């Protein structure tokens, strides 16, 4: 048999995993096949790490607390809130993020003029984007007339935008800003839209809620920015005025909990889903220790009795105080989610952290005056235990990653302490993963081009948002050196890649016709990005194969050792490979696979032997081969098959070295003397073996095939 190789380069057709096709490369959502001018540009693997640098944008603004909205499979909006020294105004930054290129594009910012002009520090921040598509709308100039619409009653705001021709915002190419909402069926636009017949339309209602603490305590609390649209986030900024008395215009409203605000020690802000156009709740954790409680507001409540931008009509309730025993952090703390495991399985809960615990509070328990609103908590316990990684006692925030059904628990980064990804459990088990590492590399734009962008801790707090498996990690620094936002394909981490999320890289099936045995799988991958001095290793990957269930994607995957050894397999006519990648590691830089090659032996003469005419004999019906390539050990069992070379029929003889019917012989002196066959490896270049069948018909032409058995 001869040695063959089946190759695959990641340059061919791809399909998403959801469109499984065994003839193409299949990619999970977070797995990409990249191309480019050079061979190292052509690879497949988890999406590259992306980076945005708020402090190096057109207008440098120290930013933190990402909130990400997915617009389409390839386009996200990222909002960040200002993190610089407390001031009377705060700015909100917007980026567009392109998944296919991992590129952050800085759109611009808005400046919030708070109804209280004393120094604010943002503690929590959320963005709400809802699309109103009920009924139909027609346009004549700047006048929009609706049928079956309830624009005024739905609390839509002046300043938002409307598009016509579809209820799908992604299909709208021209948007118009709303200058007034006159009634349930009447809207006025800021610009002339011409004549548009009655039909589908979409209003994009964009608002932002922030919770702040203030230099003058009672000037803090919750503020709601209404009437936004993407174009407001302009490179030169748009200043949003403080509201005065009118609801539903582009302005900053103060959702006070009382005439004199008591929600003064905000720790963060969590937002629930919209229940209706007049009801969407946010939850603000207040108080870091003994007075810890939760304020609940309705950001879609019609705002009444607004005076100097302040109203209590959005306030719903506040729980009683319940001491969490450890200190609640004030870094965008609090996230609402429903986990599919653990004590909170299937229940919508508010998750938040103290410095050493993760807490869970079921939303149904967040009721007025309730002093037992906390459901349970999970104490920090690093993977490997505290003798492997010391307790940080510096947890800072928690994020829910629903695609992998895990919590992302960020730490303060002080002294390089790491962060976690874990299940929520109250059984004292160790957290599942620890990730990020301290290597001090700065990722500012002026860094050496050979330095590889990655989220080093740099003794900094990170705030996180995970959207569709992509982790957006913002280093909350206030200088250009330490203020970056990274995109990281957390959901592609190998521990979760095989679930319903399917974040795997699967090759097309590779044909191995007439394979007698498999030898090895060789994978070409990037070993180090950057140069020798600044270069950085990538995270590892795992390889799998399957021989069955390839066409219908039903076969089970079997892991392949890093040696690539596949000699133990019973070969088939086709084989398929799959890769999973580690993301949650130290550098978090995803691996890059260039190509792979499967080496196997087919049913032609074994590659270790060459047919020898000189040592063969037609008279004696003896077939000989020169031992040309050593095995590197004991010679495996050999098998000889003799076919009728004219008709192809046979085998006429089928014999092995283990239980021979014919005679196997061996010579180590160029055929001068022949002795009994043995399985010793090649001794020299004049080693031969030969086989004489027990019986073979006369006067036939024979093709002799020597293979491993």
């Amino acid at each position, binding site marked *: 048999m001869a040695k063959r190789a089946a190759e695959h380069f990641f340059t061919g057709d791809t399909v998403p995993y959801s469109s499984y096709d065994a003839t193409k490369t299949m990619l999970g959502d977070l797995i990409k096949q990249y191309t480019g001018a050079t061979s190292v540009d052509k690879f497949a693997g988890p999406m590259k790490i992306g980076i945005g640098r708020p402090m190096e944008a057109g207008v440098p603004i120290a930013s933190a607390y990402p909130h990400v909205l997915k617009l389409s499979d390839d386009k996200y909006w990222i909002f960040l809130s200002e993190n610089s020294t407390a001031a009377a105004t705060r700015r909100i930054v917007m980026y567009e993020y392109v998944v296919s290129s991992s590129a952050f594009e800085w759109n611009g910012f808005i*400046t919030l*003029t708070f*109804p209280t*002009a004393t120094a604010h520090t943002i503690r929590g921040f959320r963005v709400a984007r809802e699309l109103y598509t009920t009924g139909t709308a027609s346009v004549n100039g700047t006048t929009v007339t609706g049928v079956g619409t309830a624009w005024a009653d739905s609390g839509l705001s002046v300043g938002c935008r409307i598009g016509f021709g579809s209820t799908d915002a992604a299909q709208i190419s021209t948007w118009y800003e709303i200058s007034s909402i006159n009634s349930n069926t009447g809207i006025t636009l800021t610009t002339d839209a011409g004549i548009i017949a009655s039909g589908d339309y979409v209003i994009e209602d964009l608002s932002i809620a922030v919770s702040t603490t203030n230099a003058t305590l009672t000037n803090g609390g919750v503020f709601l920015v209404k009437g936004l649209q993407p174009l407001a986030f302009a490179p030169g900024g748009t*200043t949003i005025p*403080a509201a005065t008395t009118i609801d539903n215009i582009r302005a900053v409203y103060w959702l006070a909990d009382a005439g004199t605000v008591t929600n003064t020690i905000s720790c963060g802000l969590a937002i629930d889903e919209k229940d209706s156009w007049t009801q969407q709740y946010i939850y603000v954790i207040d108080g870091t220790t003994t007075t810890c409680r939760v304020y609940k507001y309705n950001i879609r409540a019609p705002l009444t009795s607004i005076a*100097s*931008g302040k109203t209590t009509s959005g306030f719903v309730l506040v729980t009683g105080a319940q001491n969490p025993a450890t200190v609640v952090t004030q870094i965008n703390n609090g996230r609402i989610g429903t986990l599919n495991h653990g004590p909170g399985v299937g229940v919508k809960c508010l998750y938040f952290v103290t410095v050493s615990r993760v807490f869970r509070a079921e939303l149904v328990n967040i009721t007025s005056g309730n002093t037992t609103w906390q459901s349970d908590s999970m104490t920090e316990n690093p993977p490997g235990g505290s003798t492997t990684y010391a307790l940080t006692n510096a947890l800072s925030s928690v994020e829910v990653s629903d695609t992998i059904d895990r919590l992302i628990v960020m730490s303060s980064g002080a002294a390089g302490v790491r962060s976690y990804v874990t299940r929520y459990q109250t059984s004292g088990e160790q957290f599942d993963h620890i990730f990020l590492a301290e290597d001090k590399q700065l990722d500012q734009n002026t860094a050496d081009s050979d330095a590889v962008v990655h989220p080093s801790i740099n003794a900094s707090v990170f705030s996180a948002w995970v959207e569709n498996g992509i982790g957006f990690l913002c280093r909350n620094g206030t200088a250009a050196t330490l203020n970056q936002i990274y995109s990281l394909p957390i959901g592609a981490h190998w521990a979760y890649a095989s679930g319903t999320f399917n974040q795997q890289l699967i090759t097309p099936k590779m044909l191995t016709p007439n394979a007698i045995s498999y030898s090895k799988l060789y994978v070409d991958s990037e070993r180090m990005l950057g140069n020798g001095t600044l270069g950085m290793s990538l995270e590892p990957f795992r390889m799998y194969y399957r021989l069955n269930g390839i066409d219908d994607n039903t076969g089970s995957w079997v892991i392949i050792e890093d040696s690539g050894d596949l000699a133990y397999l019973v070969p088939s006519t086709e084989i398929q490979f799959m890769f999973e990648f580690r993301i949650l590691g130290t550098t978090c830089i995803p691996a890059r696979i260039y190509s792979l090659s499967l080496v196997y032996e087919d049913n032609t003469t074994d590659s270790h032997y060459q047919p020898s005419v000189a040592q063969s004999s037609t008279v004696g019906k003896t077939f000989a081969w020169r031992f040309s390539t050593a095995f590197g050990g004991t010679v495996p069992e050999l098998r000889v098959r003799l076919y009728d070379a004219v008709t192809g029929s046979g085998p006429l003889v089928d014999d092995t070295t283990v239980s021979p019917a014919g005679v196997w012989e061996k010579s180590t002196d160029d055929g001068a003397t022949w002795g009994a066959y043995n399985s010793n490896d090649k001794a020299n270049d004049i080693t031969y073996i030969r086989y004489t069948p027990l019986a073979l018909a006369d006067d036939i032409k024979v093709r002799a095939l020597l293979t491993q058995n």
Partner: protein
Amino acid sequence: MIHIIKDQIIAENENLRVATATGDYEDTALIEFYDIKNPDFIAGAFQAQFIIYGGLVYLYNDHIELGNTILEIDPNSTHTSASYVRMNNELLAKMNNGTLEPESLNQTLNAEKENMENQMVDTEKFIEEKERSIEEIEKPIEENVPVENMPEENVPVENETIVEPIPEEVIEQEVLPENIPAIEDVVAPEVITTEEPVSMIKRKVKRKIG
């Protein structure tokens, strides 16, 4: 400290006018405004510094950078950051020239205080001056001097009387709301340029009066 005039145009928002009473306000004080399309409703509030200088006051993280930028367009600004930078520059200049004396700090502070006081506008005189400006603006449009053609050296020094009527003054004139439509008719769209020149003109008016 920012001097705000009722009904003046808000920077970067030509349809918005100040509703709050004329007076001197802290840089971050909230100043209410209305939309000229609906003058009976107070639409919101901006900070006093934004009313005058627009969004540039939110572009800088460093107040010295902000002060320098404001001084470039308004050398006599009473904005706190501008005032700080101006005083700082004066002291540095004295130090570099070897004229820094123990009493220099007080002198600088007093000079800045005097500058502040000079910027305080007598509202009645201001309105009178504005009204005179309006009368002059009602002359044929070809007599107007476009702002963008005014060389920097034309900026009058303190107490100098401005002879030329400047159309942009209309933008900031102190008028009663009912006069606004007429003013809008007077100001041709091409006369309204950027907010920075508008702010410059405003400063000229103040100095003229003061």
